[in-house]
Structures are given as C-alpha cells and as structure tokens.
C-alpha cells in the first residue's frame, strides 16, 4: 500500500479515535466503581456545544475546551444526582440524560444561532506537533502531530492505570465496583467515589465533545455526537476496563471508522460498513469470553445501597 495513504489512514484513525478514547477512559473509571452511564452521549453533545459557545465567546479554542469540560460535567452531575444520590435505575436514567442532552443542546443551539442552516465557523484547535517524535515515518504524524487533546488521552491511559492499580484510591474504586457492601464494611465511601468518578467521566466526555467541534469538524451541528457515547461504552468493554487497553480499543474503533473513508477512496463501493460493524462484533466476542475473559465489575449497574421491597 502506498505509504502516504497508510500514513494518512493512520492519522485519521488516531484523530477519530481520540474523542472515543477520552470518553471511554473517563467511563472506565466510573464503571470500575459500578456506575454505567448511558447518558455519556449527553455529556459529549453538551461538551460539543459548550466548546463551540466557549470558543466563540473567548475567541479561541482553548477556553472552548474548558467550557466543553464544564458542560459535560454538568450533564453528568444531573445523572449522578438521580442515579447515585436518589438511587434511580442507572440504565433508564442514562437513557433519559441522553435524550435530554440531545434535546436541550438542539434547543440552545437554535435559540442562539437560529435555524438558518449555515454552519458555524469556530476557532479551531490546531494540531500541535511534538518536535522529534512527529518526524518518525508514518507513526510520527499519526500520533504526535495531533491536537493537544490527543496528548491528554495518551497521558491519561497510563495515569489512570497507575491510579487504579498503584494507589489506595484505585483499590477502593475497584472494591466499590466489585462488592460495594464489603467495601463499605471496610470503610470505603462507595457513593462518594461513584459520584466523583461519574463527574470525572462527564468532564472528559465533555472534552471529547469539544474536540469534535473544535478540532475535528470545526463546527457544531445538532446530534453531531453520532452515538459516540454509546460507542465509548463498547470501547470500555473491549478494553476490559483497563485504561491502556481502552486507549488501544478506542484507536481500533477509530481505525474502523477511518477504514470506511479509505476503502471508499480505494474504490471499494460496498462492504466497508461491515468493517464498521467489526469492532462491535469483537466486543460481543470479548464479552462471550472468546478473546479471553472480559469480566465487568461485578456490581456494575447496581444501585447501592440496595433498597429492599
């Protein structure tokens, strides 16, 4: 294959994988404490809108990213209040948050910018090549000439791994997601941990959304998150709730997406959707135990403390 094509494919794969990685890494942490946030999609779209508004208000992309994080965190806060503090069912609450996120962002967008249909033009988050590393053939431009949010993702993967496996907080997190009763008996503050990690995941998802708006497309459009919140949940599973593997899984999904465009360029008119479906099939296989055991945290999606009828 033409090395130029390979290089640009690699670059696209990484670029498409970054927002997934950010959302999935945050979600990994919250799922480790036993919270599955299907409302992540809501955080992403909120982050996209927040990023757009923030960038326009301050005139540059950087503040946009921060605004996006705040928006994503806010949406996650609503989820957390219901699903953790009020102990409502996590699945249903998450579905509501996603619906609400899509709905309200659409409303706010149209209220601010009308329904004319012309696309917003936003200040972009420029790529930031790392000197030296970005010069490595193929790999360099793909991994090290990305927007700074990509580097955040690279840094988070080992950092979160270290947090989970090498610190007491991480031990408590893992304990809370496996056996919250036992963890609580050992003095772990289960609900507080769940709350914090969920907010953290929301903030990261918000950054992912802001990245979409400011680094990827340069504009905002309703529903532009395009299901990435749900995909992030699949990424977490494929990555076996282990941050470095989650990063790899996210890039894998990004590659599958990028493949779509490249097969089209190569003249493959059909069939590329099958490649799009492949990551999901592999995730299912992982759950079924065919690619080694992917075991979810035992208390995932369980409300805690349990209310007895």
């Amino acid at each position, binding site marked *: 294959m033409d090395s130029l094509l390979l290089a640009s494919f690699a670059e696209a794969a990484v670029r498409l994988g970054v927002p997934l990685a950010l959302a999935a890494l945050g979600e990994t942490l919250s799922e480790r404490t036993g919270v599955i946030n299907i409302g992540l999609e809501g955080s992403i779209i909120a982050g996209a809108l927040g990023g757009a508004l923030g960038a326009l208000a301050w005139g540059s992309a950087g503040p946009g990213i921060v605004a996006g994080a705040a928006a994503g965190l806010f949406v996650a806060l609503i989820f957390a209040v219901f699903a953790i503090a009020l102990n*409502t069912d996590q699945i249903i609450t998450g579905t509501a948050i996603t619906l609400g996120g899509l709905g309200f962002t*659409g409303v706010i*967008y149209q209220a601010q910018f009308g329904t004319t249909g012309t696309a917003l033009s936003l200040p972009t988050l420029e790529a930031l090549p790392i000197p030296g590393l970005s010069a490595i053939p193929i790999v360099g431009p793909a991994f090290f000439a990305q927007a700074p949010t990509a580097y955040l993702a690279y840094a988070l993967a080992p950092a979160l791994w270290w947090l989970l496996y090498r610190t007491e907080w991480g031990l408590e997190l893992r304990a809370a997601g496996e056996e919250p009763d036992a963890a609580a008996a050992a003095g772990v503050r289960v609900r507080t941990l769940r709350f914090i990690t969920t907010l953290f995941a929301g903030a990261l998802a918000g950054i992912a959304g802001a990245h979409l708006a400011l680094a990827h497309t340069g504009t905002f459009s309703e529903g532009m998150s395009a*299901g990435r919140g749900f995909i992030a949940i699949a990424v977490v599973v494929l990555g076996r709730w282990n941050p470095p593997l989650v990063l790899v899984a996210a890039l894998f999904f990004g590659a599958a997406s990028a493949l779509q465009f490249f097969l089209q360029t190569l003249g493959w008119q059909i069939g590329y959707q099958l490649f799009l479906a492949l990551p999901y099939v592999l995730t299912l296989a992982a759950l*079924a135990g065919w690619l080694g055991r992917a075991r979810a945290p035992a208390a995932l999606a369980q409300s805690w403390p349990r209310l007895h009828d």
Partner: protein
Amino acid sequence: MNRLLGLISAPIALIFTLVVAAGALTLGGYDPGAAFGALVEGALGSPRALASVTLVRMVPLLLTGLAVALAFRAGLWNIGAEGQLYAGAAMAVWLGLNAGALPSWVALPGVLAGAALGGALWALIPALLRLRLGVGEVITTLLMNFVALNLAGWLVHGPLQESRGVFPQTDPIVEAARLPLLVSGTRLHGGLLLGLALAAVLFVVLRYSAIGFATRAVGASPQAAASAGRIASGRILLGVFLVSGAMAGLAGGVEITGVTFALYENLSPGHGYTAIAVALLAGLHPLAVVVTSFVFAVLEAGASAMQRSAGVPAAWVNGVQALVILSVLAVDQVLRRAWLGRRGEADG
C-alpha cells in the same frame, strides 16, 4: 418496580414535567401556551394531521413500546429494540422484494411474520449470552443495535440497493406485500390495528394466562418464582427475549410495509430508545402503552409545527421526553421511600 406505584407515579410525573417544561420555555423567552398550542394543533388540529402524521407516528412507538414493556416486566433490560427493529425491517424488505406474484393474503402476513422472525433472531444472541454465559443484556443489546445499523447500511449500499444504483435505499416492495390503508387519502395504514390488537393480546396473556403469570412472577421475584412457584426462569426469559425482539422486528416490518415500502438508513429516528420512555410512563402496562405511545407521537408529530408556529426548536421534544423519564423515576423513588418508610426495611 412496584406495579401500584407505577400507575400512580405516571400522572404525577406528567404533570411535573409539564410544569418544568413550561417553566423552561418561559425562561428561554418562549411562550409556553403558544408552544403547546402549536404542538397540539400540529399533531391533532386537522384530521389530516391526526391520520397521516400522528397516528402513523404512533404505530412504531406502540410496537416497540410493547416490546420494551414486556421485556422490562420480566426483568430483562432490552435496550436493543432499535436494532431488532432494523433486523425486522431488513427481513421484511428482502421478503417483500422477492414475493414474486404471491397474492396479498400470503405475501403480507408472510412478510410481517418474517419481520417478527428477524427481530427475534436479532434478540437471540444477547439472549444466549445472558442465559448461557451470564453476560448482562444491557451492553449486548446495545452493541447489537450498532451492528444492525451498520448491516442495514451495508445492505442499502450494496446487495439490496435499488436497481438504479443512485441512492442508498432499496427498491420498493411489491404491492401485494403492502399494508392496506385504513382511511383512503391518508397515510394511516393497517399497522395501527395490528398494534392495537397486539396490545390487547399482550394484556390478556399477561393477566390471564399461565405463562403470562409465570412471566410476571419471574419479573417480580425470580427467587420466589423458583422457590414457591417452581418456575424455571431461564426458559421464561428466553421466551420473553424472543417475543420482545419479535415485536420490535414487527415494528420495523410495519414501517416497511405500511409507510416507506423500502429500506434506507435512518429508517428509525430512535424509536427503540423512545420506546423506553413510552414503556416506563405506561408503568409497563400494555394497555397504557397505547396511551403513552399516542402521547409521544403527539409530541413528535407536533414538534415541527411547534417550530414553525411558535419558533420553539423541534429538538425540544427530546428534552421533554427526557424530563418525562426523569420525573417518573424521581416520583417513583419518592413514593417508594414513603411507602417503605411506613413499613420499615426487611427483617435484619
């Protein structure tokens, strides 16, 4: 979920939602009265609107709502109605394109049965993963949605693409495989009757039949069902999974045979997910699903009218749906705590 609480909390939640929604609209500078007026007008204002827009919109919500309600009633979190719908639609299209010269009374039931089968098969994989390997169905049904979406995309770009080869959609299915219109001159098709009939059947089966009772028992307490009732929850759950998938698949088939006559991407604007709100608001009760699917159809059908007349963005409807779910959940929790507070926790 306690059934009694479910029936009480819905009206309370609905009122709460309306209040919050009205408040938010006012804050946003819109006139809530005008907005709701435009919405209702757009959805119900004229017979044409009612027949060709609202009721047509109601059918897939009704069918997927029933599918989700049944699953949730048995304690099964089927989030995959969307994918099952597409699987059913794909099956329906394929059969509908190859029906040849079959007469209508063979072709149409055949196509719809095929759609149900498609949906059931789509639910089979998550069902087996849950029942044989203990894998939670939430994530698996969600994943199957994406696979279905992508497969549908492949089909309409590839093997099933229209003969012209221009758009990513299939050829229209044969006339014989199409649902008859209920009211000529409108788009209202027989699928509505099918949906209503299914709602009635589901209600009767759940309430009066032995297997319906067993299903309810498993959903309420699998342990008591096994211990006191000697009910094998595995077989019940498998059955529920398949029937739920079949109904969602049927929703897809009905859309194909009644509305679009062809498959294309974005056939469903998320009916499978809206169905969760529909089912929940109905307290998982089949007959109530008829009402709530109508309510949501009004919301969705009136959305564009609301945008045109009152300037409120159509996306607002999603927000209201979200508020509905959250209100139901919150009211439910509050009522549950009050109820338990009087009775105390289980024996320690």
